[in-house]
């Protein structure tokens, strides 16, 4: 096989994997959008917060130690214990549920029935708030996150495939972490699809997204639904935070991965869980292949805008994204 083709294939496969990682973030958006019509800008920061909390708990860091030290002149940083990853994850999930409850209590319930853009704005406020809080709580230095996930290219695959091309071809490079992410993402998607399509709560969730007032009037407790979806979204954020945090360390930029998820959302449709995955794959492959083929001609670094332009092109033909619910236009 010609090497160029093999290289393209390699890029393609890695694009798929990258797409899965984007999709992980996009999933959180979809959940909240589906359940309340809210475009949750804070999703990225939630991933950051979740990852920071996880690392903090694992390392036995004292939350808010920085302020405590500044105010009381103390010098405390660590409790001096280390929490095993599994337990730390459970505790972090607990923290995310608590966070969901607070969001519902302090923000959402006061904004019932408001227009989407107002709710969107509120989530931006939330993002600021959470960003400040997570820095105050855990400090803004970079933290290493290691819960024992494999990293680095898979030698096995590399060796298996090395013979396919000429000497210039070294076999396919596939990151172990990406493979783990793929499995996790698949499980998440299956679970979430089952939840939202086949359970009473799932149906209620979609009802809430359509009309807050009517949902209230049939006895759906918005508060409960919101705590529920924000918790699930918090969990998804944690998963995304773990994957991305393992890759690049846990620090501020983690919150910016939200920007990589937006074109995915747009392409897959804001309301579709499978859409997030398919969108992710298309975006991942699309941007990597474009960078591979056209990038060198125009000076590279095309990925950021190409993802958006690609999604835009899809939208022009399907304004609700590939799998999004049709936008009902009636008078």
């Amino acid at each position, binding site marked *: 096989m010609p090497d160029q083709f093999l290289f393209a294939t390699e890029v393609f496969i890695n694009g798929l994997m990258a797409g899965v990682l984007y999709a992980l973030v996009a999933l959180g958006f979809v959940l909240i959008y589906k359940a309340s019509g809210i*475009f949750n800008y804070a999703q990225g920061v939630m991933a950051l917060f979740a990852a920071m909390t996880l690392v903090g708990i694992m390392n036995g860091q004292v939350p808010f130690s*920085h*302020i405590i030290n*500044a105010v009381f002149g103390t010098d405390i940083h660590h409790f001096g214990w280390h929490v095993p990853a599994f337990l730390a994850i459970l505790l972090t999930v607990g923290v995310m549920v608590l966070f969901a409850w607070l969001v519902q209590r*302090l*923000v959402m319930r*006061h*904004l019932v029935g*408001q*227009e*989407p*853009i*107002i709710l*969107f*704005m*509120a989530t*931006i*406020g*939330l*993002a*600021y*708030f*959470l*960003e*400040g*809080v997570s*820095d*105050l709580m855990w400090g*803004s230095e970079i933290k290493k996150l290691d819960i024992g996930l494999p990293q680095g290219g898979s030698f096995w695959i590399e060796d298996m495939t090395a013979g396919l091309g000429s000497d210039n071809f070294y076999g396919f490079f596939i990151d172990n972490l990406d493979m783990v992410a793929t499995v996790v993402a698949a499980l998440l998607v299956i679970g979430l699809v089952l939840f939202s399509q086949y359970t009473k709560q799932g149906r209620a969730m979609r009802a809430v997204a359509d009309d807050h007032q009517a949902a209230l009037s049939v006895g759906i407790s918005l508060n409960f639904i919101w705590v529920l979806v924000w918790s699930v979204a918090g969990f998804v954020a944690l998963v995304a935070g773990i994957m991305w945090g393992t890759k690049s360390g846990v620090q501020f930029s983690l919150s910016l991965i939200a*920007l990589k998820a*937006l*074109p995915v*959302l*747009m392409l897959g449709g*804001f309301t579709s869980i499978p859409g997030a995955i398919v969108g992710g794959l298309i975006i991942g492959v699309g941007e990597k292949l474009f960078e591979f083929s056209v990038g060198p001609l*125009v*000076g590279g*670094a*095309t990925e*950021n*805008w190409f993802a*958006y*332009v690609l*999604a*835009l092109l899809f*939208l*022009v033909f399907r*304004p*609700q*994204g590939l799998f999004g619910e049709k*936008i009902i*236009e*009636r*008078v």
Partner: protein
Amino acid sequence: MFYRESGDFKSSYEQDSQTFPIKFDRFRYYAVLAIAFLVVPFVINDYWANAILLPFLIYAIAAIGLNILVGYAGQVSLGTGGFMAVGAYACYKFMTMMPEVSMFVHVLLAGGMTAIVCVVFGLPSLRIKGFYLAVATLAAQFFLVWLFNRVPWFYNYSASGQISAPERDVFGILITGPNAPAWATYMFSLIFLTLCAVIARNLTRGTIGRSWMAIRDMDIAAEIIGVNPLKAKLTAFAVSGFFIGISGALFFSVYLGAVEVGEAFGISKSFLVLFMVIIGGLGSIFGSFAGAAFLVLLPVVLKVVGVDVLGWPTDIVAHFQLVIVGALIIVFLIAEPHGMAQLWRVAKEKLRLWPFPH
């Protein structure tokens, strides 16, 4: 007490469609103008100009522009940063290509250029709606930033890709460059802001404004009763682009003096201006001012209080700043989802009924 509509009768429709139908409002408006034009220039110093007033004036222009698009025409855009960059780079190119021309013209031309670009990126809005459109405008944001970063012609082939504003003047008074006096930069921006505000006000109270709002409130119905959606949306993008371009030009040339596109006109700029518009009040010119003032001033005030008055470490203050700004946004939205402008309106309604509670 003084807030009385009664006794302030209007006898013609011209009078009724005035910007400030109530005498007291009108009076206050002239007072603000007088102070802004006749008092501030004489007392202004570098700090006030560069740290507070210039950003306020310039962001207010951008906010008015975006408000036309989002607040009046209902087309949520996250491309503001990119469009400001178009204004800035257009201005830079005009400044360096035609050094002898008045700065005033450069800025206007930059606005015009941005309007054109904005219309091009507004085309998808004919099919794409709501948040899909918002995300789609990010394509403009990222593409434009990439373009200005990538094509050396835009930054005159400078080594690092930064652009810096050469000294330019209006009637012999320096407006750009480090030697431009504070009052001149202030007045220059103020004139543009006043101009933009007046134009925006005129447009929004007339036919165009109503067709924008109709599209915003219910686009299908609007089309059925005779609003041409293509025209309404694209004019909104054009007018909005014009203002945003002006603000981008001023932002670069008068305020910062040198910019790097990714940093100065990145996505965070788009969000910042959008916050201003929403916090201030969608569909309100006054709201654009209020929102810009709020988001320019608040961080400064918090910093001054935290660092200078309370003497806290800068990083804790910076983090608290985020927490407070975030919390305030939420509190504001809960108190009044329609922004500061609406708070003001309700306050007026209450005043009118005063001393009765309702």
